[in-house]
């Protein structure tokens, strides 16, 4: 296998009862690129991420990460291999402080998790790492706030902070700006920019805000009704007829439609 491919899926599929949420998706993601997934609501983007991060087991197909078949691995092992995930619907530890949310993610990278009789505060490195990350995502000064009390925009930043603290090589960002006001979006985009600038990371981004996608992506894969209908550079995708049809709702003009039939 090409060693610059960090992630590859082969005819990946997920059925929910009669509904085919992901209908045989094959993609290759190159190491160090920003590879975005777009598609209308219900296209299967989140389900695809759930398959990649191990939240769901696929009903068919395989997933390779750095050349290894990880299809059967549970979520926690994928996290340790270097696949990190942020959620479209904020998924944090609501009654813990901002710092503790991120500190726990940092702690999971260490070897101290089963030290039953030592005080967790004795392991300062996790806290230091967490503070660095809070600085990066712009939550410094709020570390002692209980997570559920944060305003929505800050919760989105915390979501990314937790992800970063697990030191992933491949970041799956599911609509990081979901539900944010216009003023808050640049803040998140700046964070994503910093991650990219730090080098070596591969970013898979799901977004609905087109100007973000066009600016932040090297490659775009377009999904519709569970299938890939187009893939290419931002310029190619912007001019793709099938993509335009899918977004305009002309459901009979694109290839993915067939995959959705019984």
């Amino acid at each position, binding site marked *: 296998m090409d060693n610059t491919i960090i992630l590859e899926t082969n005819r990946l599929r997920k059925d929910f009862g009669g509904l085919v949420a992901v209908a045989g998706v094959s993609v290759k993601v190159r190491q160090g690129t920003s590879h975005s997934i777009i598609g209308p609501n219900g296209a299967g983007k989140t389900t695809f991420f759930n398959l990649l991060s191990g939240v769901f087991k696929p009903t068919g197909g395989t997933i390779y990460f750095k050349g290894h078949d990880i299809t059967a691995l549970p979520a926690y092992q994928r996290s340790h291999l270097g696949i990190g995930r942020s959620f479209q619907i904020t998924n944090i530890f609501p009654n813990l402080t901002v710092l503790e949310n991120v500190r726990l993610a940092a702690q999971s990278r260490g070897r101290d*998790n089963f030290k039953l009789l030592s005080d967790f505060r004795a392991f300062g490195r996790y806290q230091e790492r967490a503070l660095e990350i809070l600085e990066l995502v712009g939550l410094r000064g709020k570390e002692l706030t209980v997570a559920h009390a944060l305003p929505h925009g800050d919760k989105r930043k915390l979501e990314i902070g937790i992800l970063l603290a697990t030191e992933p090589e491949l970041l799956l960002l599911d609509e990081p700006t979901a539900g944010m006001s216009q003023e808050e979006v640049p803040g998140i985009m700046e964070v994503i920019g910093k991650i990219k600038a730090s080098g070596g990371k591969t970013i898979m981004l799901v977004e609905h805000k087109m100007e973000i996608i066009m600016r932040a992506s090297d490659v775009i894969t377009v999904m519709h009704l569970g299938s890939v209908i187009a893939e290419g550079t931002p310029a190619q995708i912007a001019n793709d007829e099938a993509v335009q049809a899918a977004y305009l709702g002309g459901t009979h003009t694109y290839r993915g439609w067939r995959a959705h039939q019984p």
Partner: protein
Amino acid sequence: MQPLSSWLKARWPWLAVLACLTLAPAFLNKFYLGLMVQVFILAVFALSYDLLMGYSGILSFGHAMFFGSGAYVVGLLLKGAAWPLYAVLPVIIATGALMGVLVGIVTLRVRGVYFAMITLAFAEVIYILSASSQLRPWTGGDEGLHGIPVPAWMSPTAERVTFYYISLSFLVLMYFLARRIVNSPTGRVLIAIRENEARAATIGYNVFWYKVLIIVISGVLAALAGGLNALYFRNATPEVLGVGRTIDALLMTIIGGMGTLIGPVLGAVVIRVLGNYLADWFGPRWPLVFGLIFVALVMFFPWGIVGTLRQRPLRGLAQWIKRLSRGAGQKAS
């Protein structure tokens, strides 16, 4: 290291309580010392339950199986096999741990209420086994084991003060052990699992084994409490394996405050002492009165006594205690 004076200042209420408990045998008669012993034993049982329900978010309806097994190990080995006590101790620990592993591995495949129901079924099976007539030659059937021989130096009747100190040390030791565990890196992971299990898995924690681990620890603590209970009453009857025991643990934890450790200890005081007096005053109808008190407690302390006072530190007792301790601190300096 912090200086001794600040260490004392932060902990003087605890030291005061401990001093009172240490001096109690000088003032209390045998009956009350016995009541305290029962409180200490129940408190450890409640502590162990809090590790599961309060800190890890695991709801078990079968916790009596650990407590009862500890009691039966003591009964079977001391009475049936005439083992020396020091040899029984590791067997209690091993039994609690083994049952924890078994229950964890078999039942953790399901979650929440389903898990609770399966643990209940598990405990009922053991309860029925303990009372079954086929096992009567060993377990004493539905009558259980009576007259367990306890070494003379710690006899719960003749040497009650010794037994009192043993139980008090047991509680203090187990309390600090539990405190250490919840404040350890592992304890923090358990709290994360309680808060958001799926997220704990996506940041790299193997939720299943953490849960098995805490069930084992909790099971060992409960089994030790059950063992001491058998030594105190010199018996082990099916009642210690019954669902009533589990409900006691649940009530003590809820009344005192889930996820606070000290709360369930307080809950044990409330349950045992209140139970004693209510039975005196109201006779056989006391559970009815207790039920009313329980409802009132839950209404006024929705997060348990300790939990509620912590959440609303500006109201009521907690503020008063704080002011008092601040005043005393200033006077001392």
